[in-house]
């Protein structure tokens, strides 16, 4: 068997068999799935009906609130203090809405014993605003609210964001979503590169401090050892990544199958705005329309989500993860070989990691303006391009720019391996004092 393959196999198997790898591989998807499932679960849980007692001093709102799946209104008049005492603690009502005397600009208090759902207040406020608005329309301007609603709905303008490609053909775009996906990908790649490249550093140091390295390089060339290690760890990274994706999908799908309707898109959409029951026989209220529009927004987002070229993003993600990792792993291997312990490695890893950290710091401005000069240059510079390009990608990057960036990264990778191998082969046999940059330069030249 080829010796480099033997090294790769050892590096891979010892890591994959480790308890920490198994734990991380299982915990990762559970955490990821939890991130997806828990918010939905919580909002589903909140579906519990909230009973509200309305005490209206103006008697205007009596019987005018619209009940929803989540909120049911009852009406009484009398002593507010007595209601507060009798109805809240007993759980007869979850909250008491006390509307104080007034005309157009009304003041109200909402009393509760247990904190009501977050959006309850805005739900009630918007209902009250609408009712008041309609009343004023009718009383002061003699306008039929239903007509007003029709006018309002038919005189709406909307701007569609349409990006075009080189041929002038339309690309569907959803900027917000692109930004979010870009940031997630950029962040993931950053974590991955750091996590696995620093494993290479530790592994080189381990061989150096345990002194096994001299035995090894009497059997294989230093560059074989270094590359075997780098590739072995890369395969561990890809394995972990693949397992995470698969396990996360299994958990999420598992939840969906055992709980059909858990991820009901309509329902998720309904959760976001506070909407009255859509089956109401009344004319559509502003809320309903808003909720409808929000639904549209979400549907649009979902469509846009499917329109994003995921094949391109995933392939690019793999490319940039792989080569970004390879560049950093090679540099980290060089650093690991040059020093005697992890504490000393900081001085040399710093100049290497600063560009990557800088990219993370600039992730927001780059996501805001994915085609601006900052993002453009950072997506070309090889130490920053793995993160920066992933941030830009979902917003659409011309093919030539992507190719250029990949090409630069590829060339830089060859350079890094050459450079790292030079330092590595000398460094692994050097013990004692920490080398200066001047000495490192000498190692490269011989």
């Amino acid at each position, binding site marked *: 068997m080829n010796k480099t393959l033997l090294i790769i196999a050892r590096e891979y198997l010892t890591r994959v068999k480790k308890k920490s790898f198994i734990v991380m591989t299982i915990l990762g998807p559970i955490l990821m799935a939890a991130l997806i499932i828990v918010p939905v679960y919580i909002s589903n849980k909140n579906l519990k009906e909230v009973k509200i007692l309305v005490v209206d001093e103006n008697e205007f709102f009596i019987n005018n609130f619209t009940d929803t799946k989540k909120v049911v209104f009852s009406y009484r008049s009398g002593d507010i203090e007595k209601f507060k005492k009798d109805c809240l603690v007993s759980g007869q009502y979850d909250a008491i809405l006390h509307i104080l005397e007034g005309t157009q600009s009304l003041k109200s208090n909402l009393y509760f014993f247990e904190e009501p759902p977050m959006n309850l207040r805005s739900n009630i406020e918007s209902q009250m605003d609408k009712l008041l608005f309609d009343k004023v329309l009718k009383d002061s301007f003699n306008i039929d609210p239903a007509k007003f609603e029709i006018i309002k709905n038919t005189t709406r303008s909307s701007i569609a964001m349409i990006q075009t490609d080189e041929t002038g053909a339309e690309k569907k775009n959803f900027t917000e979503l692109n930004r979010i996906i870009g940031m997630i990908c950029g962040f993931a790649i950053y974590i991955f590169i750091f996590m696995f490249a620093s494993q290479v550093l530790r592994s080189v140091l381990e*061989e150096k401090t345990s002194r096994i390295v001299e*035995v090894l390089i009497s059997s294989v060339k230093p560059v074989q050892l270094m590359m075997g290690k780098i590739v072995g760890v890369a395969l561990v990274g890809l394995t972990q990544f693949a397992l995470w994706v698969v396990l996360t999908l299994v958990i999420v799908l598992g939840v969906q199958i055992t709980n059909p309707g858990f991820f009901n898109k309509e329902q998720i959409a309904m959760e976001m705005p506070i909407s009255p029951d859509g089956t109401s026989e009344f004319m559509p209220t502003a809320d309903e329309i808003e909720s409808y529009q929000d639904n549209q927004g979400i549907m649009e987002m979902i469509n846009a989500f499917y329109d994003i070229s995921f094949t391109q993003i995933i392939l690019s993600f793999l490319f940039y993860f792989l080569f970004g990792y390879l560049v950093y792993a090679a540099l980290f291997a060089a650093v690991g070989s040059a020093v005697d312990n992890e504490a000393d490695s900081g001085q040399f890893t710093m100049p290497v990691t600063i560009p990557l950290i800088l990219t993370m710091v600039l992730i927001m401005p780059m996501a805001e303006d994915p085609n601006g000069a900052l993002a453009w240059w950072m997506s070309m510079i090889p130490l920053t391009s793995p993160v920066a390009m992933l941030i830009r990608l979902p917003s659409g990057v011309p093919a030539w720019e992507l190719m250029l960036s990949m090409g630069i990264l590829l060339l830089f990778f060859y350079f890094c391996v050459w450079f790292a191998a030079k330092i590595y082969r000398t460094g692994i046999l050097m013990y004692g004092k920490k080398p200066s940059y001047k000495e490192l330069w000498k190692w490269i030249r011989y």
Partner: protein
Amino acid sequence: MKFVEIQNVTKRFSNHLALNKISFSINKGVVFGLLGPNGAGKTTLIRILNQITAPDSGNILFEGHPIKRTDIERIGYLPEERGLYKKMKVGEQALYLAQLKGLSKEEAIKRLHYWFKKFEISYWWERKVEELSKGMQQKVQFITTIIHQPEFLIFDEPFSGFDPINANLMKEEILELKKKGATIILSTHNMASVEEICDDIVLINNAEIILDGNLAEIKTASKLNQFQVEVGDIDSDIVNLLPTEYEILGTEKMNGYTLFTMKISQNATPNQLLQFFIGHASVHSFKEILPSMNEIFIDKVNSYNKSHQHE
């Protein structure tokens, strides 16, 4: 027959010369002592032989041809700075190292089981290296060095870290390997073991060879013409009767005997010295003092250093 030839090998590091035109050869089937003080350049030379580093100039011939990459599988190397993966299981690790030396998995397993059994360490197979004592790790390391049955072995301080029993076991194994035809370089500061097992030696100091040749011949050539005579009853004026060819270097009284350390001049013989003593005392024992390798080492290195200080 010359097995390995080192020809004019020079290696310079950024701030010092590690090897300065070193030339010597190693005959097939010998145990060859590579000696020298710390920092003399031994490790550099060993690394060049193992192709870990390349010489700046000069050649290494292996069985007459310039050494090539594939020769590495015919060399077994036990470095002075040795170690194993601490977290890895002993058997797994030995197997890995054996495979890196070009053995197939099946063959490696077969041979490892043989050696583990021979050293009575089979029950370590599933244990992690970090659970073993230093001496135990050395045994594993020794096995991994010889597992591919190399024709050329380089042991750098092989006995350090072993208790006397295990050190002896190692010594026997090294002699066993020699008997089977292996050529062995032994680099050590332990001169007693050099005297016990080395056939030829080279002494390197300050990047240069200062002594080179067959150990027995070197010892004979370094003879000091000194003898130790142990006598009982003694003529009181023996010192005054002593001919000028003999010189008393020291006397010592022990358990009623007197111990003389004598030096004889070039034109006298040991027989004459003995005859002199027989005539004047009751001789209890008589023996020649041969320089130990230790003394030769110190003497050569010191005189080299002195002569170079004057330059």
